């Protein structure tokens, strides 16, 4: 549960205007590292992820009990304030003075319209770190284009780098660039905070999701730039292979393994597959041992990497026959006992229920949520000897931290706070405290 050991970002305050997935992923991690994240919304147009996914048996959907939203925004506080009023903007200007980081994921013009562009933020707080996450960044000919994670994935080239040889792109089965742009933006904030710790200087980080995709495209981009060749013209991507039969690289996976593939295992389910990579001669000898040194494998043409690459179709056929008779975890264990890289294709359920490693490391944390009861949430994938990175059971229930922020962070008087309440600057008139949602996104 909640830790007592200090976290590295304790004392760092983040003013968080982000919404959807990319920006909130960044601030989720900043919160996990100890920052106080104040998520700013207005109930009439709250973060759409609040109504993205509910518990399967949820009868009463509200803006506060979306389970996907809770998982994505664990550890944050919530402030509701009307930014279409001068009084609301005055609250925000006061907060900028008390914060270390301002984070947003709007299009380029929104903060400018509020009178809070980088220059204005710097006037309020000279050492502010201002980070924005958008599709293309805030300048250039594409700067005003409309994108979501999948749009950025297509544009950046990483969708095209997923798929079977000669087939249409398979792309990514989720908004990978929302998740990874969140990670990269968090790295940017940490980098800027380190410089600020040393020099006192603030920073402006103008993150583009397409550029995140470019930075994750792998060495194929360099090869293409050096050789002038188009990747898709020469069989890239090559499905699950690392190299084509002629030995040319089609996977950019950091190995030139052959065979390299996902093989159907017993059961016939859509995730009944086990992957194998034979990255060197040692793996090949171990694979033969694990299979009981069958006659087909004692072929001198398979003894070197070039031969295995050239004949990987034939090897695949034999390996597939061996796999088809085994459960995916049984196949994986048999191969791993001999040191062969092998891994079952794991679904969401597999990772939660069938993965002894994730269970042993406690990656799914059970936390109490005031509207959801005890639920499991995705944990932080690293540990530290000095900081406890367990998720903290803090939830941005809409407006729940208004009084804390106004009174304790800003030091407003009771009169000022009640005036803001009375003027409906902090909550829209006529909207119930826990707004009901008719239809969820997923």
């Amino acid at each position: 549960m909640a830790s007592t050991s200090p976290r590295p970002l304790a004392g760092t305050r983040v003013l968080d205007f982000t919404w959807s997935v990319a920006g909130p992923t960044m601030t989720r991690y900043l919160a996990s590292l100890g920052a106080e994240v104040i998520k700013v919304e207005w109930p009439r147009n709250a973060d759409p992820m609040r109504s993205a996914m509910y518990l399967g048996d949820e009868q009463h959907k509200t803006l506060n009990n979306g389970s996907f939203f809770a998982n994505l925004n664990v550890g944050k506080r919530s402030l509701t304030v009307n930014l279409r009023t001068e009084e609301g903007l005055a609250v925000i200007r006061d907060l900028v003075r008390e914060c270390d980081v301002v984070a947003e994921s709007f299009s380029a013009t929104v903060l400018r319209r509020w009178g809070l562009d980088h220059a204005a933020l710097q006037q309020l707080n000279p050492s502010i770190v201002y980070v924005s996450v958008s599709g293309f960044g805030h300048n250039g000919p594409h700067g005003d284009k409309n994108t979501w994670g999948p749009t950025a994935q297509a544009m950046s080239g990483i969708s095209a780098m997923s798929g079977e040889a000669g087939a249409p792109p398979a792309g990514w089965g989720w908004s990978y660039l929302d998740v990874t742009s969140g990670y990269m933006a968090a790295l940017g904030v940490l980098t800027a905070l380190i410089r600020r710790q040393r020099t006192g200087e603030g920073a402006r980080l103008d993150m583009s999701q397409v550029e995140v995709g470019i930075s994750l495209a792998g060495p194929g981009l360099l090869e293409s730039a050096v050789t002038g060749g188009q990747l898709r013209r020469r069989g890239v991507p090559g499905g699950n292979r690392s190299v084509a039969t002629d030995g040319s690289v089609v996977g950019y996976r950091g190995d030139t393994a052959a065979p390299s593939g996902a093989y159907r295992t017993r059961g016939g389910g859509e995730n009944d597959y086990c992957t194998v990579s034979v990255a060197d001669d040692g793996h090949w000898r171990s694979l033969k041992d694990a299979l009981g040194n069958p006659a087909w494998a004692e072929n001198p043409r398979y003894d070197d990497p070039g031969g295995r690459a050239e004949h990987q179709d034939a090897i695949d056929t034999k390996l597939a026959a061996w796999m088809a008779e085994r459960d995916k975890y049984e196949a994986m264990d048999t191969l791993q006992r001999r040191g062969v890289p092998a891994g079952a294709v794991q679904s969401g359920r597999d990772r939660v229920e069938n993965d002894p490693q994730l269970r042993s490391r406690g990656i799914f944390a059970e936390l109490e949520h005031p509207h959801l009861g005890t639920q499991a949430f995705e944990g932080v994938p690293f540990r530290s000897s000095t900081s406890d990175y367990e998720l903290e059971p803090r939830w941005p229930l809409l407006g729940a931290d208004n009084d804390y922020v106004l009174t304790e962070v800003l030091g407003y008087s009771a009169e000022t706070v009640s005036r803001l309440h009375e003027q409906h600057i902090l909550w829209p008139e006529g909207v119930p405290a826990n707004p009901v949602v008719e239809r969820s996104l997923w």
Partner: protein
Amino acid sequence: MLEGLTVLELDDGLAEFAGKLLADSGAEVIKIEPPRGAPGRAVAPFVGSTPDRTSLQFEHYNTSKQSVVLDLTSEADRILLTRLAARADVVLDGLGAGVADSLGVGHTELSAVNPALIYCAVTPFGCDGPWAGFAATDLTQLALGGVMASCGYDDGADYADGTGYSGAPVAPTGGHVKHLVGMMAVMATLAAVLELGTSGRGQFVDVSAHEATAVSTEMAVPFWLYQQREVHRHTARHAMPARTPRWQHRCADGKYLLALPLYIDDARFAALVEWFDSEGMAEDLADEKYRRSMQREDHMFHVVDVIGRFCARHDSDHLFREAQARRLPWAPVNSPDELLADPHFTEHRDTFVSVPAHGGVHLYAQPPFLIGHGTSIRPAPRLGEHTRDVLGAVLEDEYTTDTPARQQV
């Protein structure tokens, strides 16, 4: 940004993207390589031919680093590594769980000479647990981490080109396990650097590639945790528990367009219908039943079929411009190399940096959080290029700073 931070990288491949991000952000990253060179130097693709060939895989992941050769099986070189660690801020260890310990240069030994040291172990499965010793590659980790269960095809028969691809799981190419664990390793390391700045304490950080991958698949795990439903693979769109309409369409020029049919409000949809209608291709989309999003959602398979037929008649670039002029969140499915010719990235933003390197000019993407900061990227080092300079500086420094200390004793 990270000038003044010194990092030692001991790595067999898993930690080198983390080291690259730190080095390209200004940290001094010293890659410790065995006399035969880091394993990545032998990984294709290559330019040139043996024995002078250069691995582009290595060049890509080792920009801005220095190379120092040490033979960690030799006592003398282990002492030199310890001396380097005494002056470093961070050790990035990607050798595998327990390997540095068994060589006698693990966290215990190095933190003994430098209590402020941040020691970051980057391993396939973490430093403990039943799979800690398992062999791993990018492919097997994409399988175990859940990426492959969400990526692939569901509509092979729908496409006319007869490629015969199946509904099997697909592992995206490019080295994403290294990328995911690398980002997490940098996150944990930079957090530790910030803490060091206030507490003066070093720490041991244990980063697992398996965990980094397993928590990065967005809805797949939440769907199981909260609804006990599994997602199914869908071609070039989100894996979901239910079937959804297509997002990707083949255009007249042979390229594909990602025509996201989500988040299109009624005004944008009206603009789409007007556009299609101006070319006589709106079919029945002007019908009242499509006008409001609540009703339109019940007919999206048909709406998307009409979009597909429109795309088939136009080039992808034309569709991109015209769709975006109507605020539709659509984009062509580019090959990464196509961006090298897009002025948005090459002229208006410093997305790419040209680096004079061995055998020609290389283009590299900047760390995406430092665009606009004029970061400089240096070419990957030749094997041992910095051994003399780095070790010489250590020995000279120790001589001058050790002398008064000895006199005190």
